[in-house]
């Protein structure tokens, strides 16, 4: 105690006290603050629709119309289902107001998952459509990876490339990369066919097929994938390989040649 009082006039004492005070307040707040989660779970379906309607009127109605009937700036949302809402808003594509260019790009989502669920509930209430999948539907348990690869190459690779790295479409449109896209969103995209993508309803690609494709993508294009051989060079095939061979292969060899040629046995100067 004596030690402490002896140092109470130390120049840094005020800083230490301030830090302690801040830590204490923060800790207390964290301990007693109301938990923010689980609100959506407890609200009833109708309440969630009502909340969703409010969000819709603020963020979406200017393009999609006050009742989701669509306008010259955005399509009708009647019957698109909760899967479409969850995909579009969850991947940040909607709201698109700030997006420019040939197609709406993936962005940071600006609504929380709870808000997206409310929006989805509201849109789903406008007319029946494909519903948001459950985690059971897109989990990779019980999926056949090899089958998924075959399905991917048959149905998806012509736009999204062998390993889902994306590719060009006409007039500046493109098939985006599938790297880092949540399995849920891949499932919803197949179900609803956003933007230029054709939709693959369960009659075309069964639930099991979708599951297989998602598991395949996880196996080849995620942190856990086995892809030996070194740097992937973007996974884009021979164009980047050729560029790499020219710049780093031949470039290095020419540098070596210059180096070797510069080190020559010179005749001694008299």
């Amino acid at each position, binding site marked *: 105690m004596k030690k402490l009082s002896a140092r109470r006039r130390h120049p840094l004492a005020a800083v230490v006290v301030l830090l302690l005070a801040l830590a204490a307040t923060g800790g207390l707040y964290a301990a007693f603050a109301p938990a923010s989660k689980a609100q959506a779970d407890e609200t009833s379906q109708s309440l969630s629709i009502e909340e969703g309607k409010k969000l819709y009127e603020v963020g979406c109605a200017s393009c999609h119309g006050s009742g989701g009937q669509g306008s010259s700036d955005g399509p009708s949302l009647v019957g698109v289902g909760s899967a479409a809402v969850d995909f579009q808003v969850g991947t940040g594509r909607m709201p698109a107001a700030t997006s420019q*260019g*040939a197609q709406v790009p993936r962005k940071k989502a600006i609504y929380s998952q709870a808000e997206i669920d409310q929006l989805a509930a509201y849109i789903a209430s406008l007319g029946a459509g494909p519903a948001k999948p459950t985690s059971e539907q897109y989990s990779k348990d019980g999926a*056949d*990876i*090899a*089958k998924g*690869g*075959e399905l991917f*190459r*048959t149905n998806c*690779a*012509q*736009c*999204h*490339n*062998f390993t889902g790295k*994306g*590719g*060009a*479409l*006409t*007039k*500046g449109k*493109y*098939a985006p990369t599938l790297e880092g896209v949540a399995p849920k969103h891949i499932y919803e995209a197949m179900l609803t066919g956003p933007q230029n993508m054709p939709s693959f309803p369960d009659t075309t690609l069964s639930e099991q097929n979708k599951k297989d494709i998602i598991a*395949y993508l996880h*196996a*080849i294009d995620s942190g856990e994938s*086995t*892809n*030996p*051989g*070194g*740097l*992937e*060079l973007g*996974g*884009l*095939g*021979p*164009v*980047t*390989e*050729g*560029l*790499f*061979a020219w710049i*780093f*292969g*031949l470039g*290095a*060899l*020419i540098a*070596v*040649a210059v180096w*070797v*040629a*510069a080190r*020559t*046995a010179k005749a001694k100067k008299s």
Partner: protein
Amino acid sequence: MSTSATNESRSRGKAPAGERVADWADGRLGIYSLAKANMRKIFPDHWSFMLGEVCMYSFIIIILTGVYLTLFFHPSMNEVQYHGSYVPLQGQMMSEAFSSTLHISFDVRGGLLIRQIHHWAALIFIAGMFVHMMRVFFTGAFRKPREVNWLFGFLLLVLGMFTGFTGYSLPDDLLSGTGVRFMEGAVLSVPIVGTYLSFFLFGGEFPGGDFVARFYSIHILLLPGIMLGLMVAHLILVFYHKHTQFAGPGKTNNNVVGMPLLPVYMAKAGGFFFLVFGVIAVIAAIAQINPIWAMGPYRPDQVSTGAQPDWYMGFSEGLIRFMPGWEINLWGHTLVLGVFIPLVIFPLVLVAIAVYPFIESWVTGDTREHHILDRPRNAPTRTAFGVAWMTVYFTLLIGGGNDLWATHFNLSINAVTWFVRIFVFVGPVLTFLATKRICLGLQRRDKDKVLHGRETGIIKRLPHGEFIEVHEPLSQEQLHTLTAHEQYTPAEIGPAVDENGVERKVKGAEKLRAKLSRAYFDEDSQIPKPTVEEYKEITSGHGHH
């Protein structure tokens, strides 16, 4: 007596083992005279003379690694089910070729590394040949007596392209299968015989069960065999002609200044081989190439975006991609111009550069031997032609990768394609003119340097207040180097009438030649190099003005 006898017996005694081995070999192989003639062969020193070596060494690396790969590769299109260690393909049906390539990649010790060295070395080999060819082109090393060797080199490039293409097709993966399908489409577009040719090539309907085995023979035996022979011939001719050299003091058209083959170049070349091998091995160890497991086995009903050939075939992909899809239907037959025209242009692009030496020698009418290299600036029309050709080539490469340009630079693929369509015609004209102007500018600069010396950057103030920059005269060696090139005068058609006053008939070819010669060598196409008189007058003490 006894001492001389022992001396005699010693000299008659056994020679050292090395000498005996050499003697044994010489008596049977005649190496001595061969070695005597060539061991002191002189090679000039310049880094660009080592580009051909890069090609030779990468070719050797390709052969060595290729032999290893043949030990494990099964050139068969029999359908098998995959049970190897790559999980995402387990249980899939695929050709034996594909499954054995997976086996090499995942289950053979060192297999993936050797595969990647083989493939990277192939890309570097052909890139090296391209750059080597450009070096020979821009320095005029193709002139007499080396025209035949130029053609040998050109053939090596073309054969290298096709060897590469057949090798790329062997694993029977989805990417290479698409490439083979592309080739089949091009063959099919040939009027009248296309279908027959395709059936002949694939032993029936594409893809059939034959092409991997056929491509295998072509890839490992036929083409590399021819290439090896051509490469030896190429080297023999380099020895026979002796190497060219850049102009410089002491270097004439009749000598070669440099270091002897043994020991200097043997050591250098041997070391350089390992450097090349090392660089390629490092690249193969750090960067993936052609990950066939990610592409999956070939099935004609599947295709992926971003399907391109290796870079050396990229310009043919560009030709197809920028071509509008024209076709003509006549009497129930379709002529697919959208594919057939690119197929016709494809060899023409290559032939354009191959025949250039003969066109140039026809225009200059020069039948002398040339062993001194040109600096590119001193042959402006040739240099401009070469740059224009490269413009076409690289524009087509951009066209071949138009989708990646679109996605990676946020462009519209239509805009990229239209750019290629226009620039492939406009580009070479622009670069031709620009290159010629740059060459002339550099010639003027050389002339200026010869006459006025080097700008030293030292500013001097004269008594009356004027500032001048001090120019330092060049050394005799530098003056020689900058003025050693010779300049042609344009060829004349000759008098319009013969000695009897009768109008002479001038052939069209002669007129064309005179016209081309003017375009090459009139005063708009070369800066007359400084004469001795000019130099004397300027350096005779009138100061720097």
